[in-house]
């Protein structure tokens, strides 16, 4: 299978401390891959390697390859701003800019100059908000401050912002942990629709959520990738004792 992102032998160090050990994992195109594992196992560290969000961390050292469509994103010739337009990110807490709803979505297309004129930009904003399942709720108040939306609406706005630049991959780090079950269900439904067009990677502590929305699941433990495979299989017949212990809620 061709992977959208192919991580090969990734080792990650924060100064002296190694956070990831020789991780190799392929992320299939048009699928959602869930990253699960106990707190501190390296899920967020791994995710941040996929769009070089780690670049700003002092003393960070990385070995191995992260190939996006076959090209190493750590190659010196790669433009990081350009890379982030291909690999977008949604965070745990919705973090809209303190601007209008419209400006939040228009921001990415503006810096990446993805439109010809104002009406083209309007179209991108409408399409992104529609895809994020938010258009009907906000179309009459696009100039209102984004911070006045509810948490679930803010998170969908952040997803609209991520997809406005038409990325290839969207990374999400616990995107529902601050949301109630209804808002969570909406995001999950959205994730399922988005994967037709994008490759998705989601970190979640909610194992049922991982089981519901992903096609592939990867289990991390103490910086190691213990097991990765088809989600249905991993949740019914995990191969590794540690995976079994973690997903069934046993002492490891």
């Amino acid at each position, binding site marked *: 299978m061709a992977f959208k992102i192919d991580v090969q032998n990734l080792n990650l160090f924060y100064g002296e401390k190694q956070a990831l050990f020789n991780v190799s994992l392929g992320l299939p195109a048009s699928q959602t891959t869930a990253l699960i594992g106990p707190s501190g196992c390296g899920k967020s560290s791994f995710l941040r390697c996929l769009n070089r969000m780690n670049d700003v961390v002092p003393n960070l050292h990385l070995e191995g390859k992260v190939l996006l469509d076959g090209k190493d994103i750590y190659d010196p010739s790669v433009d990081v701003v350009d890379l982030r337009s291909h690999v977008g990110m949604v965070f745990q807490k919705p973090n809209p800019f303190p601007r209008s709803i419209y400006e939040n979505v228009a921001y990415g297309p503006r810096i990446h100059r993805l439109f010809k004129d104002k009406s083209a930009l309007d179209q991108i904003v409408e399409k992104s908000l529609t895809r994020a399942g938010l258009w009907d709720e906000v179309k009459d108040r696009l100039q209102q401050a984004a911070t006045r939306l509810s948490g679930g609406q803010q998170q969908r706005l952040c997803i609209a912002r991520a997809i406005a630049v038409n990325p290839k991959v969207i990374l999400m780090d616990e995107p529902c942990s601050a949301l109630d079950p209804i808002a969570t269900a909406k995001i999950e439904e959205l994730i399922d629709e988005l994967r037709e067009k994008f490759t998705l990677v989601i970190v979640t502590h909610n194992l049922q959520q991982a089981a519901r929305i992903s096609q592939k699941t990867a289990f991390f433990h103490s910086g190691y990738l213990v097991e990765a495979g088809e989600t249905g299989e991993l949740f019914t017949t995990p191969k590794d004792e540690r995976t079994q212990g973690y997903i*069934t809620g046993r002492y490891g």
Partner: protein
Amino acid sequence: MIQHIVKAYDEELKKLHDLIRYMGELTLSQINKAIQSIVDRDAELAREVISEDQKINLLEIRVDELATRILALRQPVASDLRTVIASLKISNQVERIADYAANIAKFSLNLQKLPSFEEVEGLPILIEIPKQMIESALIAFEKADLNLAIKVWHMDSEVDKLYKAYLQNLFAAMIADPKNVNPCTQLLFAAKNIERIGDQSQNIAEAVYTMITGKPFQESDLAKNGSKI
């Protein structure tokens, strides 16, 4: 198996095992009594078997309820999920076996209205292997013992052989004397029920196989697995 972080979860899974073990014990006792009632021509014992069957039906309902509760509240996955699913199947199969025991008790009552007949002595022999199958299949479930489950599965062909041999005897007896037709018919039914007990026990072994391996049971996989272990 390592314990769950949530103790109550372990207790619920244990309770599920306890209920099924109890169902198994009761069912074996029902089978023993049903066969005994034929050999001893004991109508009271046969009627006891028929009325006790309700207890096993109720136990099956309790297994259903507990399993449903665990599914809803604990959302089990992996081996836990497979255990709960297996419990549902196995309790259903044990309940069926108990029905066969009750059927045998009914044929016992019919037989007792007829003159005594020596071919009844074949039934205690015929029931031996099916009884072992039930017992071993339930141990295989409790201990998650794949080897034992496979062994049980193979025992059924032995039951079929003995069943066919017994039928030959009954046919011979009917041909020898038309007076034997009545009791032989009752014994044919009883033997058929015993043979079905073997089949159901084999089904339990298959459910245990799936629980342990995570794969649907297929006879063709058995050769591979059997030689591997």
